[in-house]
């Protein structure tokens, strides 16, 4: 079920470079809204790669770029949407928190906890279709304390729907330490929903892949919902512009030691892969994203005259 480490490394590089491209858009003012990156958490999305099919749904959060990449959403329209361009996935109407790729059943929401109910609807659709497709909802460690988490998992458990909840536990919900406001861990909640639950090291893409694949396989077999909790670190502030004063420099240093790209590279080197080769990979990935970024930058913002389109199929009321 797992891919080889080199492949994971490439996926993680792609996500990191993609996120860095987004950072450049904030610096330049091309992205004028909030931006949340998953820098430090790339191994989780990388671990998902290859496990989901196009007809499996994936509903992600405000911190969603890696998941889109893992689901196979084309990079250029995704980046263009984040850059608010008319060539974006949603023509510039949605922006970074509201990405939609209906062809791959990928969607996102900026409201915490709102992913599970939507994924549950996809899961019910699979049940109606009689298909073995599954639906994945992403949540942060903060999102697990929302009412929608409970309502959705209970329903999935009662109806044995193929809902997989991937909890990205980066310890923090903005400035709130999740363990201080959570009675128990996310994986430990599984029995309350007759669900399968597990916790994995989210800096290890192969570990994520094993757990996630198992959860997806169970759901596909009709064994009901699952919770996969993956632990990792958010390196940057909650959003770009967050002064992040709530975390000490010592803590940030300790977190940096858990960089999944550094860990993977160290391991690849230990496996005997040459530094030059790894540097080439990095350069190649960077070049690929740079080329996309250049095209995205050259694209236009949507025409302001279109601002009232799409409210209703027949025009504004």
């Amino acid at each position, binding site marked *: 079920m797992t891919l080889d480490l080199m492949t994971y490394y490439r996926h993680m590089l792609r996500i990191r470079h993609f996120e860095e491209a987004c950072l450049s858009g904030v610096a330049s003012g091309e992205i004028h809204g909030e931006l949340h990156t998953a820098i430090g958490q790339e191994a989780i999305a990388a671990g998902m790669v290859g496990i989901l099919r196009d007809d499996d749904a994936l509903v992600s959060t405000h911190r969603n770029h890696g998941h889109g990449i893992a689901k196979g959403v084309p990079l250029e329209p995704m980046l263009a949407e984040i850059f608010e361009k008319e060539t974006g996935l949603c023509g510039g109407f949605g922006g970074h928190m*509201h990405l*939609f790729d209906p062809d791959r059943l990928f969607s996102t929401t900026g409201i915490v906890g709102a992913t599970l109910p*939507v994924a549950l609807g996809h*899961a*019910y659709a699979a049940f109606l279709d009689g298909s073995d497709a599954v639906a994945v909802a992403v949540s942060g460690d903060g999102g697990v304390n929302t009412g929608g988490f409970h309502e959705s998992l*209970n*329903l999935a458990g009662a109806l044995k729907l193929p809902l997989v909840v991937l909890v990205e536990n980066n310890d923090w919900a903005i400035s709130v330490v999740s363990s201080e406001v959570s009675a128990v861990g996310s994986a430990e909640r599984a029995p309350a929903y007759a669900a399968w639950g597990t916790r994995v090291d989210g800096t290890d893409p192969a570990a994520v892949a094993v757990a996630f694949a198992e959860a997806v396989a169970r759901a596909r077999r009709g064994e009901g919902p699952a919770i996969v909790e993956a632990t990792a670190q958010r390196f940057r502030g909650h959003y770009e512009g967050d002064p992040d004063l709530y975390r000490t420099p010592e803590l940030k240093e300790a977190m940096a030691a858990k960089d999944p790209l550094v860990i993977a590279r160290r391991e690849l080197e230990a496996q005997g892969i040459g530094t030059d080769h790894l540097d080439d990979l990095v350069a190649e990935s960077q070049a690929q994203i740079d080329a996309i970024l250049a095209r995205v930058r050259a694209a236009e913002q949507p025409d302001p005259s279109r601002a009232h389109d799409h*409210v209703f199929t*027949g025009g504004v009321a």
Partner: protein
Amino acid sequence: MTTATDTPMLSPSFNLSRVIADAIKLEMEADERIVVLGEDVGRQGGVFGSTRGLQKAFGDRRVRDMPISEMAFTGMGVGLAMSGYRPMIEIMFVDFIGVCLEQVYNAIAKNPYMSGGRVPMPVVIKTAGGCIGSAAQHSQCLWGTFAHLPGMHVVAPSSPYDAKGLMAAALRSDDPVIYIEHKGLLLSKLGDFPHGAEVPKGRYTVPIGEAATVRDGRDVTIATLSASVRDALVAADELAGQGIDVEVVDLRSVVPLDADHVAASAARTGRLLVVDEDYLGFGLSGELITRVLELLGPGALRGIARHGVANVPIPAARSLEQAVVPGSASIAAAVRELVARG
């Protein structure tokens, strides 16, 4: 509205809720993508019977009783729509919308826009509003709340004919539609409705967004909707005896709001009274008056007025309730006051 006069008709002894269930059934037969989720919609067929028989007809996959988890099953509507289905979500009473408004206004209403038109949301939210004596948490209308938030059509039929035709239109629409039944009408028999009581057996639609004049008059226009149409007609009959000739316009939907129709009527009568069982402030009445004046110019009408639940929760006691909820007597009084002003 294409109904020949010799079409077979539903029995006048049916109640309104049966007509609605019938409308849903016909659409579900025609389109298997329609699924119905809600509390008590299946085994019981709705607390007022407006989904009765559907689970028997279509099975418990397409018509499913839900736990009291409105956020989850409203959100399911979003996922189902994205998966190609046409979900109808029932929120038993509109008063409960506060537990799941998030999925309604941030997802169902906005996904078509946020996706740049790529993700339509053909979702019907069916719910019941209106006063039947159950006080502050079970008597609201709240169509003004939905109407303020962009991206949803909002319908509230007054007659059996419209209830069926608008339900069909809602289920066929590619836009999200909030369909608000009135609890006080659901158990009334067709034969007891003063207008739109004849309901063809077959499928038809009433287009969403078109008001209808249900009574012609020369002196004053009452624009209203839902159960207040009936009360306005009663008031109009009473006022006719007092020499005041009232025109009654049934808005039928709040979004789209057919201000053109109301403006044309008010321009003829010179006076406009908006009657609204929803809270008066920051809602339908101010919007409609403003739109009519935008269309006609500020000085075009002799008189404008509005009558509704004047910014107070619905009280429990009948004595108090009657003091705040518009009824035929209070509507007649409001008309007399408006006419007396000149």
